């Protein structure tokens, strides 16, 4: 019983970390990232490979963060001069590329066979039975750490600047060149956080393979951010928790509802997730408030 709750909470924590990064990239900076799953995979695999090489889980996590940061920076750089829709597609494509590379480069990633036996942090410190609890504790610490760090960052001049970038093109213009740097930095930091999420995913499952990093992860993360209220890290904590609990909770539907076959139930589940996303956007746009202000200017400038 408790062990199941621990599992769910662990998954929630990983979802929260992903959410925090998207909240930084999209929520605060307005840079949409449709390649979440790809960067997540990149993080998980880098971490796994380093950990398997025996360099230790800390080194693994750091490497994962660094690699994802660099990759994100690169992606942001490519789309620097372009409006955000392009970034969305670029990130999507980038995610695809990562997926293909992981699938195809068996010598490195084990291809579709994946990487088994990934070491875990503090393994053997406690009995196998209690380990999951220890892991969850560690993860919660990481979440809180990131949360606080991000809250501070949001209030810092840097944070104010990136919010400005999201909110107002005029500000962007006046801030001038360093805006581009800001965007790249913000996106890179976000990437680093995804990397950390990936690392912990790898540690938790101890086995990773390409099928774990499907685009649905991206969808869930957007759900979490939107549900929590875009831009609000506090809201996100709850958003992610609620989403994960709904997703997991819907498993119990099967045990009760017998009329539909499992395929249909699974489909309904995804339908509900899609609907939830849309309904939130339409009826609960908390955190979108600022975007109304773009209305007028958007209508008039022919560029939009």
């Amino acid at each position, binding site marked *: 019983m408790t062990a199941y709750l621990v599992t769910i909470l662990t998954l929630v924590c990983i979802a929260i970390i992903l959410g925090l990064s998207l909240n930084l990239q999209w929520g605060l900076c307005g840079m949409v990232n449709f390649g979440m799953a790809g960067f997540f995979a990149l993080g998980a695999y880098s971490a796994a490979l380093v950990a398997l090489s025996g360099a230790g889980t800390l080194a693994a996590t750091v490497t994962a963060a660094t690699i994802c940061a660099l990759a994100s920076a690169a992606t942001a750089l490519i789309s620097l001069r372009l409006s955000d829709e392009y970034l969305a597609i670029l990130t999507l494509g980038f995610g695809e590329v990562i997926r293909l590379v992981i699938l195809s480069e068996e010598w490195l990633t084990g291809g579709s066979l994946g990487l088994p036996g990934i070491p875990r942090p503090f393994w053997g410190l406690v009995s196998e039975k209690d380990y999951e609890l220890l892991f969850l504790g560690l993860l919660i610490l990481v979440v809180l750490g990131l949360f606080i760090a991000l809250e501070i960052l949001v209030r810092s001049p840097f944070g104010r600047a990136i919010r400005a970038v999201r909110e107002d093109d005029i500000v962007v213009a006046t801030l001038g060149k360093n805006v581009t740097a800001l965007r790249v930095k913000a996106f890179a930091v976000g990437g680093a956080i995804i990397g950390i999420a990936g690392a912990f995913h790898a540690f938790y499952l101890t086995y990773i393979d390409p099928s774990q990093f499907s685009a649905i992860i991206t969808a869930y993360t957007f759900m979490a951010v939107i549900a929590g209220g875009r831009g609000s890290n506090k809201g996100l904590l709850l958003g992610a928790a609620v989403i994960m609990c709904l997703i997991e909770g819907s498993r119990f539907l099967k045990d009760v509802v017998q009329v539909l076959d499992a395929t249909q139930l699974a489909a309904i589940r995804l339908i509900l997730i899609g609907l939830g996303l849309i309904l939130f956007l339409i009826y609960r746009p908390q955190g979108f408030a600022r975007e109304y*202000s773009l209305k007028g*200017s958007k209508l*008039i400038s022919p560029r939009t």
Partner: protein
Amino acid sequence: MTPPLPVLSTAGVAAGYGAGDIIRDITIDVTPGEVFTVIGPNGSGKSTLIKVLAGLVRTRVGEIRLGAIRLTHLSAPQRVSTGVAYVPQEFNVFPNMTIGENLKVSTEFLGREQQATLEQRERVLAMFPEVAKRLKLRAGLLSGGQRQMLAFACAMMAAPKVLLLDEPSAGLSPKLVGEIFDKIETLNASGLTVFIIEQNVKEALRIGDRVMVLVNGSIRLMATPGEITAKHDLHKLFLG
């Protein structure tokens, strides 16, 4: 004798983007056949005002009427068909379309019947011979002055009661400015009511029957050009 019923009128209009209003408590009566010009320093809210009239910016408070018709809640397209035509300051033609297409597209969605449209087209082409000359030409290739003319022509295709012009002289050489304003006068002479936002105070005072001075989004003064030049120091006015 009673003054003629205003063709375009606003009562206590306020509007803006995002938080805060850019224009406040605007009450105007534009009488038929007059040239009504609005002048004011940059950022005084002139172009916001004209966009509110054209229906591009939502009216937050107050009323806008065209004669007896309430425009306040009509969309921009609906306002065109009721008889308010607007010529933006820039990007006022479709550069990727030919002149002919520009004219066509300006009437096709007004729900007028063919015959009326064709007659109006003839009238407009007569009014703008320089436009009529090369219908096949891509509008993007036109010079600033020619564009302005085409923009006027397109606006006229809707056979409007009131023509709203947003700084028609902006970025044009003095010679062209002259031509533009002559055209405006001829249009006005044909009985059309014209509402102009203008930077070029000299021209504005020359052409306007009445001039309104807008400062920080509210009406500072409304008078005839004569009164203004006689009684007031424009610089003081503009400095609010």
